[in-house]
């Protein structure tokens, strides 16, 4: 009985994770970004990883642990506010090596927003471009809606654990 319940929870999580990946891809397509990634604080540690990405040009993201307060995702999670990089590595705060995902995926422009869970930043969504690009104003609405969807899915994963 208990085993069955555990299996159900696991199956449910797999579905939620697939939905998260699909939403990540949807975001990439809708804003025509080159790369979109979701950085998340892991549930049982303070480590931040990139579990869901779309448009990646290599596998480096799998091995990266984002350092709290470092890089675009780390800063967004630490401050809970959005961040934009217009033309990496010009005019960035700190050194280029503090932005591993920008280096790993050869990104030039990026836009990141926090993912909130119970009123606190739990992760970040990164929308990146491999050439200089400014996100259109009207994309804001799409991004907002999809981030809400991501937040809802993450909430369900956390609650089922």
């Amino acid at each position: 009985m208990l085993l069955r319940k555990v299996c159900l929870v696991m199956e449910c999580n797999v579905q939620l994770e697939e939905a998260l990946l699909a939403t990540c891809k949807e975001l990439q397509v809708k804003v025509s970004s080159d790369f979109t990634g979701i950085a998340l604080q892991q549930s049982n540690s303070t480590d931040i990883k990139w579990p869901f990405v779309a448009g990646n040009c290599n596998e480096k993201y799998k091995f990266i642990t984002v350092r709290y307060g470092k890089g675009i995702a780390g800063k967004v999670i630490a401050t809970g506010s959005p961040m934009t990089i217009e033309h990496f590595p010009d005019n960035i705060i700190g050194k280029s090596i503090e932005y591993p995902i920008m280096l790993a995926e050869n990104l030039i422009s990026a836009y990141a927003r926090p993912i909130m869970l119970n009123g606190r930043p739990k992760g970040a969504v990164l929308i990146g471009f491999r050439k200089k690009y400014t996100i259109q104003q009207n994309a804001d609405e799409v991004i907002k809606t999809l981030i809400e969807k991501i937040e809802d899915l993450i909430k369900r994963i956390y609650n089922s654990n």
Partner: protein
Amino acid sequence: MELNAINGASTYIIQSQDEEIKRIALELHEGISQNLFSVFTGLEVLQNNMTNPDMASYAQELKDIMSRTIQEVRLLSVELYPTTLTTLGLTAALSSYIKLYTSTFGIIVEIISNGKEKTISEGKSMALFRSCQEALINIAKYADTANAKIVFTWNQDSLTIEIEDIGKGFNIEAVTAGNSCKGIAAMKERMFIAGGNFQLFSTIGKGTKVIFTLPISC
């Protein structure tokens, strides 16, 4: 006199900068880290004695922030100055740096070691450590590759370290003609001060290789 004076000055700058960095790293490691850890354990005691669940969960948040801070301070201190260099030796210190490097940049580094490791002076190990760090960081910044290789060869009276990537490569002449090769210049300078030798090879589209050679005496 000119050349000698300049070399002397840059030797002095590199050495005094290294000492200052070491001082800060040790202060972070031994002073600040220890204090933060005491605060963390104190918070835990307070939390366990809290009856109000809201307060307890607030204490948990503070503990989370504290453990992230402790972790950050530890990483920062290791990055600045690896204390393992003098206690466990060059290979161990570099291996642990490489672990941090992989989890930072996502680049996998294959480590190959030939021959038996020998003890080398702190000054020499530091020169090698810093130079390897610079070469690896250049790979993360410019090579556009997910893999790198580092080969240690311990001979009777010398050590050779080769760091290689099969990445973008670059035109050494064009790059060194400009005045923006501080990293490459520093590797050369550090190896020179340590009494060793630095070589750089790169081919566009094929990759880059740096070789550090250092005489060691036992």
